[in-house]
């Protein structure tokens, strides 16, 4: 959650005020119904709004750390291809982002212990844990149970967007072989723009942690590798077009 203070006791204060008013009305007056309502609201606010909060700038900075240097490293290694988001499977215990050198030809066999992957014709690529995997894991753990396929993707993406507040809204659409994912910027809009300004290729390679979490959610729910076909910024939206990898 993005907030201005490290320790937020506002929920206790707001809840306490309502509880106080409620108790006063119940004990010292005959307004029992409003008193009960106020007491109920006070308890509800105290319980539901409770939670640890982090400063907004700290939250954004922690999302930035590591991502730029990773992109710089990929640049230096000449890994300039568009990323492929690979779900967990027989040989992988967790989702991966595969970034090939040059244009993507074919997805090699990926294994947990292998990071640098060589495929046919001496083509090299790198298999990374998606930068947004912790966010994806958090969203998955918050859901009681999830469906599979496009509906499952919508559920996890809904949690990432509305439940965790990473974007204002999101949508996923399946059109034959192309899967379009549209994200509408929310509180992290300026973080996204700044990162894209510094590292323009990051969006099609590994994605920032936020986009990566959404793309990992899509590939995991659909249980198939998805290649970033193209990426478009149409303020305040960003649109990813993903292609199924055979």
């Amino acid at each position: 959650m993005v907030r201005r203070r490290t320790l937020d006791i506002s929920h206790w204060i707001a809840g306490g005020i309502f509880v106080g008013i409620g108790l006063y009305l119940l004990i010292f007056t005959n307004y029992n119904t409003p008193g009960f309502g106020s007491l109920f609201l006070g308890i509800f606010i105290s319980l539901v709004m409770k939670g640890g909060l982090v400063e907004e700038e700290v939250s954004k900075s922690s999302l930035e750390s590591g991502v730029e240097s990773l992109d710089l490293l990929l640049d230096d290694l000449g890994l300039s291809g568009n990323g492929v988001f690979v779900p967990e499977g027989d040989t992988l215990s967790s989702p991966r982002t595969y970034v090939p050198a040059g244009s993507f030809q074919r997805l090699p066999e990926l294994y947990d212990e292998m990071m640098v992957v060589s495929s046919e014709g001496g083509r090299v690529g790198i298999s990374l844990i998606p930068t947004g995997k912790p966010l994806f894991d958090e969203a998955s753990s918050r859901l009681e149970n999830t469906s599979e396929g496009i509906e499952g993707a919508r559920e996890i993406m809904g949690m990432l967007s509305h439940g965790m507040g990473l974007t204002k809204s999101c949508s996923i659409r399946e059109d034959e072989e192309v899967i379009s994912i549209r994200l509408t910027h929310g509180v992290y809009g300026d973080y996204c723009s700044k990162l894209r300004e510094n590292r323009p290729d990051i969006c099609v390679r590994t994605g920032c942690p936020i986009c990566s979490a959404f793309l990992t959610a899509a590939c995991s729910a659909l249980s198939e590798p998805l290649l970033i076909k193209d990426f478009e910024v149409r303020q305040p939206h960003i649109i990813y077009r993903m292609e199924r990898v055979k």
Partner: protein
Amino acid sequence: MTLAQKLAGAMALWTIGILMLIGTADLELYGIFLLIGLLIARELTTSLSKQKIRERMDVMIYVGVLLFIVVVSRRILDILGVI
């Protein structure tokens, strides 16, 4: 605005709205309406809220259901003429 804040705002509106609608006369009816609001909020936010928030709401629902049982029992005893 976070989900918890939206939830608190919605419950505040519900609490005040119901109070304005049924007035201050019937506390039992008011309590039942609050429980209904809580159940609706719990159901609508199931797929979006954190496990901890759901658990806390569940505790409130259990208390509400207990109170509801007490209210219904009192009404039944009242109709039977026991009290």
